């Protein structure tokens, strides 16, 4: 994506959720973002706002980020009611200010879910995702030298599907977008990418049962098939994976009941 080549800068009004710590109440505070270059990323725009806040001796706005390349899954802000903002298939760090207009009023909120407590301002604790992965989102394989490539044949169709699921960066936008704060898309992606591959087969049932049990235990909601998660996902992961996980879970549960 090239720049706009425009010298025109933009002025925006930001209503930002400020919350001192996990226990604090939190409130919206309004800031002016002046002289913003349209080619800045959304996070660079916030950096500019924070520089001003720091120079005035105020507390900068806390937000998560790391790679700023759309691959690590750290960033994430709900912008005017859309996780990661208005553009599809884009993380907050890859969203550019040219997606907005001069004079826009933007509301910035953190991911809101019981299972994602706010740490500070726009930063949330996504430890629940780590605990779900720890409950089965791995394979128990001996480590050592990498095995010979192609020594385990994988049907092309499954390899492609597994790759689509593995694109999940664990940012949590699916939870943020879901009217029920459900983590089904995340869990479905993490369970499916292993359940689709030969290496994932031995622990297939245990994986889906363990991950779903942990997901429920963390206090995420259930799926009502609205499809908001796939619309918000920066990696465009399809809710077809949720159907796949449902099927895996039904099978594993029946096996458990009748075994």
């Amino acid at each position, binding site marked *: 994506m090239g720049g706009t080549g425009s010298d025109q800068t933009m002025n925006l009004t930001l209503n930002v959720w400020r919350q001192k710590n996990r226990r604090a109440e939190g409130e919206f505070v309004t800031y002016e973002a002046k002289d913003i270059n349209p080619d800045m990323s959304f996070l660079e725009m916030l950096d500019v706002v924070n520089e001003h806040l720091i120079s005035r001796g105020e507390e900068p706005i806390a937000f998560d980020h790391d790679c700023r390349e759309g691959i690590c899954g750290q960033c994430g802000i709900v912008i005017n009611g859309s996780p990661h903002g208005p553009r599809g298939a884009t993380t907050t760090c890859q969203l550019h200010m040219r997606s907005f207009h001069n004079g826009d009023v933007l*509301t910035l*909120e953190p991911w809101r879910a019981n299972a994602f407590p706010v740490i500070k301002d726009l930063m949330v604790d996504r430890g629940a995702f780590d*605990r779900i992965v720890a409950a*089965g989102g791995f394979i128990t394989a001996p480590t050592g030298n990498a095995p010979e490539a192609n020594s385990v044949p994988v049907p092309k169709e499954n390899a492609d599907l597994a790759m689509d699921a593995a694109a999940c960066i664990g940012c949590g936008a699916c939870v943020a977008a879901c009217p029920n*704060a459900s983590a089904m898309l995340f869990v479905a992606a993490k369970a499916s990418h292993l359940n689709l591959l030969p290496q994932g087969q031995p622990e297939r049932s245990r994986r889906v049962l363990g991950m779903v049990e942990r997901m429920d235990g963390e206090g995420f909601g*259930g799926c009502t098939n609205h499809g908001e998660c796939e*619309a918000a996902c920066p990696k465009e992961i*399809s809710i077809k994976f949720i*159907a796949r996980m449902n099927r895996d*879970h039904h099978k594993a549960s029946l096996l458990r009941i009748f075994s």
Partner: protein
Amino acid sequence: MNAVAPAATPARSAPNRLSRLIGSTIGLKLVMAVTGVILSGFVLGHMAGNLKIFEGTEAMASYARLLRFEPALLWLVRLVLLASVVLHIVAWLQLFKRNQEARPKAYRQTTRKEADYASLTMRFSGPFLLLFIIYHLGHLTTGTFHPNFKELDPYHNLVTGLRVLPVAVFYLLAMAALALHLWHGVWSLFQTLGAAQSKQASFARGFATIFTLVVVLGFAAVPLSIMLGIVK
């Protein structure tokens, strides 16, 4: 700092394992889908039966006698339907509570991208259908709410019952609610049962659309024909 949770511990007894399936969000949704299949099948059959009214009094009466031919069977079907409605609602109440608790603090602003009117109103179309089912049973099954009820004369009961304009309008509103409920519900149950589908274009979406149109237009034809005086 966060301790790693243990993977699913093996449950000892089969009932315990069953309760763990039913207790999960996926299991509860499975209950909604299975009972949804039963209820959807019922509304399709019920609609087809109602169309007998266009064949006249005798056809309608013999259809009613056919249903009462074996009382044990009739009560078995009624029991299955009652159980389905109860389980459908109980499972939903459980899920609804969890879903509310999952987001204690609402967003100031929400932008919906893929959720549609039908999916967002399931929680209203459902209870409206419950209200209708209760009224409808009292109206045309027991006759409690019917001013001119004749036992085993469904043609007479239908025509005199639906000639009352507010009653006919209520029936049509209920069919609108059923249309919304089925259009999302039938698509959704494919997803819940595990048949991977896309929301915009898929077999399940097409099936749900056609199923909804057939059921709802078939049902609505009866009160409309009575209102318009086509069926007297």
